């Protein structure tokens, strides 16, 4: 049987497949934006070719195709979601526009409003009100719901968001509303705020619910179409999709909870990072994924990716559990430019795939990070992307010279070095943002570099942050696709439960967790699931704070009891002090939200076993060239470096810097003092010399 992992990206669609848990194939095929399925089918054809199997036979023997997709992200960014109406509490139609006052720029009075998911005319106030204590203060005006749905149905609405004030305290009105919609307009999608994000805070809940109503029909249709097309070609297995929380889910689930697919694209990489870290005995990993336009930083602690519940996506707030991926505009295509004070800036503008960096020779005239890496001698002119593309060094030099060096009156290399330093510093600050700023010491982490470009910069970030180990898998270029196969089925559930810890009735909490378990465990039941795990969490805060810290509970068979509560409180104090330098023992600790992750642990395709050739340091360079490398004092020095061909590097080989290794889809830079050893799984484990 085959298992297939596919990651549909903006530029390339990456694929990984394994047969009977054994031989793996992987590769890239150009994406087909707007017609994602074309690239998906192309990828599967390539897999079939690699296994020398007819397509129908391969699909017939494929038990699972696991996806990461940017369909949801693109629908948000391009405003191509479903036509949505909102039924809300009368008198509160504009919560979504007020956004709790948030604007992306603190100084720009000319900043435009985010494009509406639902225009005001389709935001319908319904007479009803639940009190903060859950009591019905004003009964639901069912006739108003009925009249509204009948009208909206005629106006092309296909998706309803329902979000009533204080509904988490009592969802009765939302549920009744859904019943009425289902009767009157049965083919429409319905998102209830208490189903999507059952938690207090009307703006965050509403925004998430609206996104869900906007995206779910799109994903439902997309998945149905894909399943049809695959089915026609003989596929009878299961279609799974990566979710933003790092788990995976049945494609049909995303038709209900489309908002959970927002980070489906990059999620696979983070999961792979966690898995690879554990396999290499580095449970703490900072993952950096650098492609053409962006640099995505994520953090894995104790083998688990960090998640957050307060993210923004395409200018909407999403309160669901999402992987904590911090994105900065620093990719290989990011453009270097001079601002009004003639200081060098890099990004966030990107040359993208077209025209691409100047050195691609496709008409790009602006200097990019890739151009700089070429000029500084890190990239090979002839061997870029496995030799599929030649780079034009003269074009890269011209772009840097004309747009940076000459205006500043400096020479080409100085300009290239300047750009490199700026973009490297931006990356290091990006890593600080998910580590230092959240109370983690980057020195406790290994840096995992993947995506096409990250490994060329990683030694510098490692030195900036004091990181001593860098990991670069040979499959760095397709790691996200691989990650989809490593993900577990996962559903993240929440329930609001506001109470001081000292007043908590642990029996009641156990009942709430049991209820969430009973209602959601079916979502992770599957033939390839070997066990189902529950992970329980409290969101805790000092009474009066509004930002909670999520604390995992150590629960044994007995469920939550006084010992569990006490341990959670102590863990909270410790975490608070670690993150923010102090604890407030005199303040009562307040429980805000219960969280339960239900995880169906799947059988995994093992990391490809390799054979240690025992080459050690004997591997020979394929050549040498001159490159400009950073020195401890911040200057760059001209240095002769060894150049290795990744195709000839095997497990057990050891390479010492300064050197570059050209792998198929990435170039690994080693500075003086770096020492890379390739482990059994084909991962370069790089020991970094003393930090700067």
């Amino acid at each position, binding site marked *: 049987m085959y298992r297939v992992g596919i990651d549909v990206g903006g530029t390339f669609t990456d694929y990984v497949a394994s047969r009977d848990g054994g031989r793996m194939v992987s590769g890239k095929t150009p994406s087909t934006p707007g017609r994602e399925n074309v690239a998906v089918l192309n990828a599967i054809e390539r897999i079939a070719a690699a296994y020398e199997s007819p397509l129908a036979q391969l699909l017939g023997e494929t038990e699972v195709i696991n996806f990461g997709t940017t369909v949801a992200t693109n629908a948000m960014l391009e405003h191509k979601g479903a036509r949505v109406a909102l039924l809300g509490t009368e008198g509160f139609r504009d919560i979504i526009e007020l956004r709790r006052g948030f604007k992306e720029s603190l100084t720009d009075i000319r900043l435009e409003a985010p494009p509406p998911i639902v225009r005001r005319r389709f935001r319908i106030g319904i007479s009803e009100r639940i009190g903060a204590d859950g009591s019905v203060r004003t009964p639901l005006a069912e006739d108003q719901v009925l009249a509204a749905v009948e009208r909206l149905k005629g106006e092309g609405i296909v998706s309803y968001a329902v979000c009533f004030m204080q509904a988490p305290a009592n969802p009765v009105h939302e549920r009744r509303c859904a019943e009425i919609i289902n009767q009157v307009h049965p083919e429409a999608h319905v998102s209830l705020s208490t189903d999507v994000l059952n938690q207090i805070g009307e703006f965050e809940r509403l925004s998430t619910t609206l996104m869900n109503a906007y995206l779910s029909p799109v994903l439902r249709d997309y998945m149905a179409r894909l399943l049809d097309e695959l089915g026609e070609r003989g596929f009878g297995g299961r279609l799974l999709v990566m979710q933003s929380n790092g788990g995976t889910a049945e494609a049909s689930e995303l038709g209900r909870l489309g908002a959970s697919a927002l980070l489906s694209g990059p999620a696979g990489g983070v999961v792979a990072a966690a898995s690879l870290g554990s396999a290499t005995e580095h449970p703490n990993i900072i993952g950096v994924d650098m492609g053409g336009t962006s640099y995505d930083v994520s953090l894995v602690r104790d083998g688990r990716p960090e998640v957050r519940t307060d993210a923004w996506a395409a200018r909407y707030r999403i309160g669901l559990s999402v992987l904590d991926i911090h994105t900065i505009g620093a990719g290989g295509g990011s453009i270097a430019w001079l601002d009004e004070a003639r200081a060098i800036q890099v990004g966030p503008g990107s040359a993208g795939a077209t025209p691409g960096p100047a050195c691609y020779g496709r008409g790009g005239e602006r200097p990019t990070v890739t151009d700089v890496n070429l000029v500084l001698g890190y990239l090979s002119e002839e061997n870029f992307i496995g030799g599929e593309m030649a780079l034009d060094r003269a074009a890269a030099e011209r772009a840097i010279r004309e747009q940076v060096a000459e205006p500043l009156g400096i020479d080409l290399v100085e300009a290239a070095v300047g750009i490199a330093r700026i973009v490297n*510093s931006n990356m290091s600050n990006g890593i600080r943002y998910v580590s230092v700023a959240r109370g983690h010491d980057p020195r406790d982490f290994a840096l995992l570099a993947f995506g096409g470009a990250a490994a060329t910069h990683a030694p510098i970030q490692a030195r900036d942050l004091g990181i001593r180990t860098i990991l670069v898998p040979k499959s760095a270029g397709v790691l996200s696709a691989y990650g989809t196969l490593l993900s577990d089925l996962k559903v993240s559930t929440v329930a609001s439960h506001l109470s001081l810890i000292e007043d908590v009735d642990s029996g009641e909490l156990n009942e709430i967790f049991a209820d969430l378990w009973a209602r959601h465990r079916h979502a992770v039941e599957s033939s390839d699931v070997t066990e189902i795990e529950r992970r329980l969490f409290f969101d805790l805060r000092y009474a009066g704070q*509004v930002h909670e810290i999520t604390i995992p509970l150590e629960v044994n068979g007995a469920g939550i009891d006084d010992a569990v509560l006490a341990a959670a409180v102590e863990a909270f104090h410790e975490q608070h002090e670690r993150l923010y330098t102090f604890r407030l023992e005199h303040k009562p600790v307040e429980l805000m939200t219960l969280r339960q992750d239900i995880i169906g642990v799947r059988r995994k395709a093992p990391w490809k076993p390799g054979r240690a050739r025992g080459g050690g340091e004997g591997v020979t360079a394929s050549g040498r060239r001159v490159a400009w490398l950073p020195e401890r004092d911040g200057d760059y020095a001209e240095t002769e470096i060894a150049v290795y061909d990744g195709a000839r590097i095997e497990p057990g080989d050891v390479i010492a810097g300064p050197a570059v290794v050209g792998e198929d889809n990435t170039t690994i830079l080693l500075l003086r003092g770096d020492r890379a050893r390739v482990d059994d799984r084909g991962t370069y484990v790089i020991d970094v010399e003393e930090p700067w």
Partner: protein
Amino acid sequence: MTETRLDQGELITAEIIRNSLETVCKELSATVENTALSPIFTLNHDYSCGVFYSGDGGQVQLLARDQAVPVHIFASLDSVQIMFETFPDDIREGDVFLVTDPYMGGTHCPDWTIIRPVTVAPGVTFLTCVRGHVNDVGGPVPGNYNVNARDVWQEGFRIPPVRIVSAGEHVGDIWETILANTRLPAEVRGDLMAMVGACQVGERRIRELARKYGVEMLRRSVDYIVDYSEKRLRATIAEWPDGSYEHTGYVDHDFAGNRDVPVRVKVTVSGEEVVVDFDGTSGEVPGFINSPTGNTISQVFTALTALCPDIPINSGFFRPVSVVLHPQTMVNPDPPAPVGNCTLTPGTTIIDTVMKAFEQIRPELVGTAAVDMNGARCFGVSAATGRYWVSSDLAATAMSAGGARGTDGWGGWAATFCALNLPPLEMFELQFPWEYVLDEYARDTAAPGRWRGAPAIHYRRRHTDQMRCTIYNGGARNTLVGYAGGGDGAGNYWVIREGEADEMTVTESCYAEPLSVGSLLFAQSGGGGGWGDPFEREPAAVLDDWLDDIVSTDGARRDYGVVIDPARQEVDLEATRRQRAGGGSRSPAAG
């Protein structure tokens, strides 16, 4: 201006250090937001973080800031300077200082400034700093907005520069004294801890930078950083036409019976420099709207940052601009004149007036940058818990965004004040004894314009416990102004005990009015001004507003000259052309 000579490699290092300092400020902000206890910090985000610097005992300079409420961070510069001068030779590692007094760089008594000096080498001191608005600082009136104040002691406890942490140890009696002078000691203690904690987080990063780049490089980078902003602002000003541009704005009232109090501004552009002269502004007034210099200058720079939103804010930004404040005027009072409401009034009027002067220079850049947030403080003792509480609910005063060239007003406050957050209503219903009935845009209240202002918000809540309510309202008559031919905002007013026999409409103020269980409180918070002639607004945009119930059929005709056929839900283009040719009635938005 002193040119710092750095070679290109050093320039890049300096640029990296500048970015790193901005990141430090973000970390400070995140720490405060995540750890403070008062809703005014955690929900409203009424605080700001910055990194300052003093080399060789020289003037303190602002290097970087984040999430700044505009009135905080410019004025903090004075607070930090005064603190630094108060303890010239007596700062040790691990010390933290607090200063709050309005006449020592402050704005009003509740704005507290926490400062942690980080000396990386003799004579080279960075200062991490948080200024935040604490919920109560004693004085006669809970929440400190004393509409009857006639001197500064009637506005709260005043704190000169004091050391609150000495070499890492809390200075016990100073803390106890400070906490004895707030009605909410548990919250304020938590907020202070949060601010001190944030400054410590910042210290770690400053020391890392010093280790990594060396003190000498750090010093040189500081000069570069401020020069950089100065250069950019000078380049911008150089493009403005030389000349003098004047405007007079008016504050509704001074809470002591004086109405339409003038703020007069003359902006003179010459070459790369700007002078903002307040000659002709009202003298000191008896009521609590006098604006200490820190506040006044902050408001001027708030307008400037909105004109040049992409220049990093630091001391270099201040250099090309001189602000002339004449003694004993409302914008430069002497102690002990009361100042409690200065951040709102005359703050709003100062920003709007400076903007109106710049409208004559760069009309395409101007728009509402002011916040006309009109306050109410309610307080009481909870019948359920017996605990004393004080609240300020910004949801009631959520609006001031105006139109600007290219975009209608949207969201809540103007961008420059959007570091302040609106509270989650559901959370407030749990914390305070009321239930919201209404919080929604009101029809025909948006300031008309080719790009209109944001509509007014109508807000209503019903009380579930008794309380007292103090309101300090401005902008009922002199509403936020329109620009480039746009109309003015709808303005603010309150109604207390709505529907009862003793219902009271408040356009100026009320003091400690009792509200009973079941009573209603209503507020209108008007949006900012429109931009451009409303008769040039795209008819399709007016139709969209009509479909969205932002304008009525009559409103569309009156304010925009657009005739809508309600039955067909279309614009009658011919009738619109006639209406617009006739000029229409061109009234501002209804109040």
